[in-house]
């Protein structure tokens, strides 16, 4: 599978038409999901057309600017594609917001309020950041993934490429410390 992807990317770099068709069919779903999720998390109201515009723009960029050549490990392109789509979504919404502010179109701004869907509790992030200030970076990430994102031990282990037992130990120890800190 990964070998196939490597070959596919190489063929896309050589601009083979068939390879590009396959590339679009294989990865458009991933880009679509990432862009949509990012827009949901940004808390702004958006339309289906916005997501479609972003996905199209990402593919156009990859095609025109030969971005595929930048990817070091061509077997593992999914994470890069997802991050690219998300960044594009953030820029898109920023531009859109600026445009609306320039136009002083209050009606539209009112309609771009957050609906809260998929948003992360910012108070929770700030509070947690204060409590875990002195923790190691790795431990901070583990705790954030567990507390803020609600990830299971298994998911965190896969995400951070570490054994599940280590994740469990870190969470148990650090939560104990957190409890102590909060009680103080």
């Amino acid at each position, binding site marked *: 599978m990964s070998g196939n992807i490597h070959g596919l990317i190489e063929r896309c770099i050589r601009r083979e038409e068939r390879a590009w*068709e396959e590339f679009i069919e294989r990865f458009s*779903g991933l880009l679509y999901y*990432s862009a949509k*999720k990012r827009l949901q998390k940004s808390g702004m109201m958006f339309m289906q057309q916005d997501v479609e515009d972003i996905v199209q723009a990402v593919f156009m960029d990859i095609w025109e600017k030969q971005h595929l050549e930048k990817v070091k490990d061509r077997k593992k392109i999914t994470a890069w594609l997802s*991050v690219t789509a998300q960044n594009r979504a953030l820029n898109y919404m920023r531009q*859109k917001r600026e445009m609306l502010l320039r136009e002083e179109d209050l009606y539209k701004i009112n309609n771009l309020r957050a609906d809260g869907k998929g948003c992360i509790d910012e108070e929770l992030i700030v509070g947690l950041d204060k409590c875990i200030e002195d923790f190691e970076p*790795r431990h901070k990430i583990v705790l954030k993934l567990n507390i803020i994102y609600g990830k299971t031990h298994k998911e965190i282990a896969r*995400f951070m*490429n570490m054994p599940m037992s280590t994740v469990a130990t870190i969470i148990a120890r650090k939560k104990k410390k957190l409890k102590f800190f909060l009680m103080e």
Partner: protein
Amino acid sequence: MRCPDEVVLSSYLDEGLSAVERGRIEQHVAGCARCLDLLVVAYESGRGARKCPRVLQNKIKARLGLRQRKAIPGLKWLFASIALLLLSFVFKKYFLQFLIVAAILGFKWVMEGEGARKVVMIFKGMREEETSDLPKHRVDI
């Protein structure tokens, strides 16, 4: 510290990263909610198959100047329908049951066609327009 670029950040989810590189990214991600959030979504997007509307895929192909393949309506439903219709004549005892199932599958085949999908989309759009409170004007960027 500035946020790492897309290539560096996404490489964190690759298993082949060295401990030093991993540590460097972790140092940043631990204190940057934005980057951690990007990574979480990237991680989630890689789990399971994600679908994209066929219409959008065709639009992208058109913009890139690639040839488009027309969506073939699910022929399997048509074949299944015909098979069941034939079977209804073989097993005469269950003629009506076979016929009903054949009709249902035939209907499904018709509904999966491009034309039927457009009609459904028009109706959906009309219904959404009536109920939705979304902004009516889209701003193009």
